[in-house]
């Protein structure tokens, strides 16, 4: 589908790693939107916040509480990273819902970089903080001894599958939602007068997509918190 194709912004040359493409453009817009909300609207530091400032404060408080609740008090030093991830994914998802926009998070390459960054951070952090003791994460001491090697194998597999499911969940949800909207829009073109039904359906789907965009950003960050908790406290 042409809404997912990466094209250069200028000219028709092949896409190299340095070529400015529509992905570059929409990622830059995402960053500007996040900066607009979190820096521009809060510049007044008003006691009685404006609408923008109160949105920024609400999202800050929401993510701060989530990090505290899910990953624990000592994970708060990673709050800036998690807040950055949440705001970037949220705005990338929401900007992608604008007609003719490009959804950067619908590409597995984009989400895989974020998921791998989380995976590497968490793994390195676990080994730095606990040394070889981090491996106890895979050795469940509360299970009966004969079961432990089997469980260890399952735990290791599920640990290495984390970045895969972490990245594909976000990309898959974004891609599937846009593809469904496109299919319903295709019905509208084919039906003539009966096109009212698919148009109503697309409108309802759009509302659902707004919900999915926010929930997927939330799920990505909450899973980051869960993985962070495993690295900080690997003991079961």
């Amino acid at each position, binding site marked *: 589908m042409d809404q997912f194709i990466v094209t250069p912004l200028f000219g028709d040359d092949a896409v190299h790693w340095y070529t400015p493409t529509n992905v570059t453009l929409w990622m830059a817009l995402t960053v500007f939107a996040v900066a607009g909300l979190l820096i521009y609207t809060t510049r007044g530091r008003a006691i009685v916040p404006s609408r923008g400032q109160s949105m920024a404060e609400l999202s800050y408080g929401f993510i701060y509480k*989530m990090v505290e*609740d*899910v990953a624990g008090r000592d994970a708060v030093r990673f709050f800036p990273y998690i807040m950055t991830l949440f705001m970037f994914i949220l705005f990338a998802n929401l900007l992608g819902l604008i007609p003719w926009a490009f959804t950067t998070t619908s590409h597995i390459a984009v989400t895989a970089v974020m998921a791998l960054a989380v995976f590497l951070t968490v793994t390195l952090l676990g080994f730095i903080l606990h040394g070889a003791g981090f491996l106890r994460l895979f050795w469940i001491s509360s299970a009966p001894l004969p079961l432990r090697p089997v469980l260890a194998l399952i735990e290791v597999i599920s640990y290495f*599958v984390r970045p*895969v*499911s972490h990245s*594909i*969940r976000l990309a*898959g949800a974004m891609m599937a939602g846009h593809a469904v909207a496109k299919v319903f829009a295709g019905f509208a073109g084919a039906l003539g007068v009966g096109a009212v039904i698919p148009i109503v359906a697309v409108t309802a789907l759009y509302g659902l997509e707004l919900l999915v965009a926010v*929930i997927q950003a*939330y*799920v990505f960050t*909450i*899973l980051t918190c*869960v993985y962070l908790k495993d690295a900080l406290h690997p003991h079961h």
Partner: protein
Amino acid sequence: MEGDIVTMGAYLGAGLACLGMGGAAIGVGHVAGNYLAGALRNPSAAPGQTAFLFIGIAFAEALGIFSFLVALLLMFAV
């Protein structure tokens, strides 16, 4: 008739892989339904457990994502 039997197999396999998403749908529905049942029994405890609701949904959903991944691999990579 055009195409070859390998393409047909890949497309059939991709379609069959989508059956796995049904299993993930059952799992997600189970998590959400049980959360709602628990929340209606004790509404005051519900807000503190929404994070676990989403974590449970995400883990149940991950296995459906693998079937989606298999479908994508069969369609575009094999």
